[in-house]
């Protein structure tokens, strides 16, 4: 019995622990979610051959169904899940973008590019990587802003749901979002 993997059960259990404030539950949940999201992303990419885009919130919801099982979960569990999933989704997207961009030295990456990149060689094209960098920096100064952006952009949580998760008002969340967005855009799209 214990050999059978029962992801739905495991996830539910972890979510319950998470709701009671058990931080470790988030750490344990993260790899499960990450794996599922990664697989979902690969499936999505195979489907859309022409258009190499991923829609983060869709994938997150797909992962939710896979992991939490077919029975409808109470909303507050879902919100917690989406919170963890947001961070995992971000990681998946960043890893995906990096994987495409050779950046390390040595054979594995070098031989894959005709122009031969060196350590630190950046591929300026991936907005998601730039966003990731900027988001990390934002997080160093204002962790809650980073979280708001993650929850909203990667998981598609509403302002109200975010407020609940973070214990602040919806209005505060909205203000945070505007501020974070303005700061990020200032970094990402500097005007001449």
């Amino acid at each position: 019995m214990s050999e059978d993997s029962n992801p739905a059960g495991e996830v539910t259990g972890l979510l319950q622990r998470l709701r009671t404030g058990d931080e470790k539950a988030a750490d344990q949940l993260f790899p499960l979610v990450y794996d599922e999201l990664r697989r979902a992303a690969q499936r999505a990419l195979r489907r859309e051959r022409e258009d190499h885009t991923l829609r983060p919130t869709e994938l997150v919801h797909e992962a939710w169904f896979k992991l939490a099982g077919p029975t409808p979960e109470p909303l507050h569990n879902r919100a917690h899940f989406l919170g963890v999933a947001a961070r995992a989704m971000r990681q998946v997207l960043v890893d995906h973008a990096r994987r495409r961009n050779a950046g390390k030295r040595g054979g594995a990456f070098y031989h894959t590019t005709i122009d031969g990149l060196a350590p630190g060689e950046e591929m300026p094209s991936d907005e998601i990587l730039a966003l990731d960098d900027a988001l990390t920096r934002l997080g160093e100064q204002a962790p809650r802003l980073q979280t708001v952006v993650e929850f909203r952009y990667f998981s598609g949580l509403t302002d109200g749901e975010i407020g609940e998760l973070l214990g602040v008002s919806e209005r505060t969340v909205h203000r945070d979002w505007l501020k974070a967005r303005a700061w990020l855009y200032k970094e990402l799209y500097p005007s001449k």
Partner: protein
Amino acid sequence: MTADPRWNRLSNLFDQALELPEEARANWLESACADDPALRAEVFAMLKAHQLRQGILESDVITDTRAVLQETVSEALADRYDVERLLGEGGMASVFLAHEKKHGRRVVIKVLKPQIAARYGVDRFLREVRIAARLAHPHILGLIDSGEARGLLYYVMPYVEGETLRQRLDRAGPLPIRDALSLLRDLADALAHAHRAGVVHRDLKPGNVLWVGNHAFLMDFGIAKLVDEQDSMELTDHGFAVGTPAYMPPEQRVSDPSLDHRADLYAWGTLAHETLTGRLPLPPEKAGEVDTGGVRAHRLELPESVARLVARCLATEPSRRPANAEEIVAALDALGAPTTSATPRRSFSRLALLAIVVVVSLGSFAVWRATRPPPPSAGSLPTPITVLGFTNETGDPSLDPWGRMAGDWLTQGLQATGLVPVVPWPTALQASQLLQTQREAGRGVNPVSFLREETGAGTVVTGSYYLLGDSLQFRLEVADAVRGRVLGTIAPIMTSRAAPQAGIEAMRDRLMGMIALWTEDQITHAHQLEQRPPTFEAYQIFEGGAERFRNQDYAGAMTEYRRAFLADTEFVGALLSAGIASWNLGDAKLTDSIVREIHLRESKLGDYQRLRLESLDALLAGDGEAEVIALRKASAEAPGSMATYNLAVASLSTDRPQEALAALETLGPERGDMRGWSSYWTQLTHALHLVGDHERELKAARELRSRYPDRRVGLTLEVRALAAEGRAAAIDSVLFAARALPPATYWSQGAAMVVAGEELATHGWTEAGTQYLLRGKSWLEGQLRVQPGDESHLYWLGSALYDLGEWARSRRIFDSLSVQDPDRLQYRGLAALARARTGSVPDTLGRVSPAERGEYTMFRARLAAISGDYTGALALFGEASRLGLRGLPWIHSSAYRDLVAYRDDRRALPVSLRPAQASAAKPN
């Protein structure tokens, strides 16, 4: 919650500023943050960014950009205008109908497209507009308002109900003489006024003239200067037509910096011709004036003086035109009331008739043979030949791609003849664009000699195309770049605007014929010319892909290239580019399948492309030697092209650093495709490092850093150059400077420290090397505590541990990395090495694709060295270099521990693996 007081202040300022109405923010910010201008600037930047309507965070939303624009414009100008609806859109701006609140009148608001606005900038726009707004004249439709709102540049004009002259001419043909003369006089008067105020219109044409109640109004004064010379818009109720260049005098077409108000006079003359006759005058030839009798031929009752006036205005030489618009006004005034009674008919002089005939047929091949200098005799046609992109004189930038396609296809045609060497298209295109930039910058450049310098061409083929109604007219000229003279032209070819391919093909055939005549040889069809130009749509998509490729957005490029191929399945060149892009993405399987598709259609490729395909085949097969051979040939075809650069990279992969250096030096950083290509410097440092010229290597690394400060790789390369000479203190200052930099993808200080450590150790500074490795290790360990699982940090830590001899830990890291990413040979290989070090027998490295053979063999070589089989290892090192691996420039330092055994006898090693001697002194 952060304790950073600066952030808190920034945050509060932003919050408070948002509470205020938009126009009050700047002032409030000035006083609220008077003490800290930097902070103020940052808040201000955030406020601006706040108003961006489209960024990555909006990307999940499908936006109807038109609706968003209208909404934005409405909101932005809501205090003064009620925007009713979008009237139409041109290439440069969107035009809205609106109601002005203050005066209760209808207005037209023209909003520049963001790309255009970005190009010109707010200040310049406002300055130009201010100049134009000063003009107050009964026949100039003034600007009511202008400005910038929400990042959009706009200007406002009264909405006058009536039709433009264009519409009138289209609807009902030429004007009655009386009306025409009145209109022309009004316009001349308006021009005179403007010219006195120092403003040149530069875009006078019927579309810019309102003809209402028998009065003429000139529109868009001065604004036209802001937009691209060859694009302007007309407003109609249903849509937009685009102007023609017939109104542009020759000096404006070549962006002669000495252009002045007389350009407007030329346009006036053209407009007069059209208004009076319903037709445009013939395009000007290089020599002489246009038919003087032309206007009168159509309107016999036109006074002779007017006809002469019009003809003078149409002179190609500005000095032969009337000195100013006042002259025109005076001449028209002197007519008094025009009568409709016919003045006595004058017959054209026979001479004039003859002149017309000669002018018209001057372009034809036969005539030129009789009247131009004799063509070069066989063998003396200077080579190679360059075909440039054709200049778009239609005034419609959406037709730009035809010009490039024409250049491309003519190039291929010439190549196919096998009679003369031809400069490949990518090089020629680059040169054309450079020439354009030079011209735009107002630098007087002799096109032919410039091109000779850029492409090394002996003969230059140039051309242009015009719009005549619904047809495109192509012209072509062949010039001897060495002696600086024209050799010949081809009769203008008319072709349909919608599908000019047939015309381009015809031009190609004729050009090939000309060349054959000159080389006095038969055209030999070496292979069937199945090629035909791609469709318009496909070519445009392809160009989009090429732009992304240049920006190293290979994923985006590949998407576009594939789309281009889908749009036209004969367009095999697009597939080739897709293959290269997919290779750069690391997707060998995909590249393989694309390459197979290309092979099915090989006959459609040109020589240069075929060689690129060969090099791709070699790359996929893991055959470094074959790749180098193919690229050498391709490079010989196109010395200034990407092939030479790829040759350098392939040479570095196959242990030929000298050849790589030579190739890169041939290119130089400013020629052709290398311009703006940071990897050029990267490869240069590799080559210089491997040949031991560390002084130049350091210079190159610093060059890279200064030109591309965002590219962290420059730091790593500088560190490496310094390490090669043992300059530890200098390394420290580079790393120290790097601390202030925000983190970036796959670059970290830890990585740079490890690189420094390995490099120092390799070149003999073992002590210092170990120090850096230890520093790197502890830095990376620290990072991993915060970000466990970060692939980059893990990789570098694993490498550092291996270098330091901590085999077990290194092995655990690489084991976990290879589980996480089983496709990466590198992780499996490093794991196997670490395992060998801890004494266990390594399993095989798993399945390896042909393309990875070089890398795979390198691992086998290292394993052999670890197990003590030094002779066997030597053989494998040699084989690995022959097969080629992209990581070769790094191996001598990253594998230095495995190469220790060869310290005393390096000569047997491949050149790239020999570390240099440590020098006794340690300069800093």
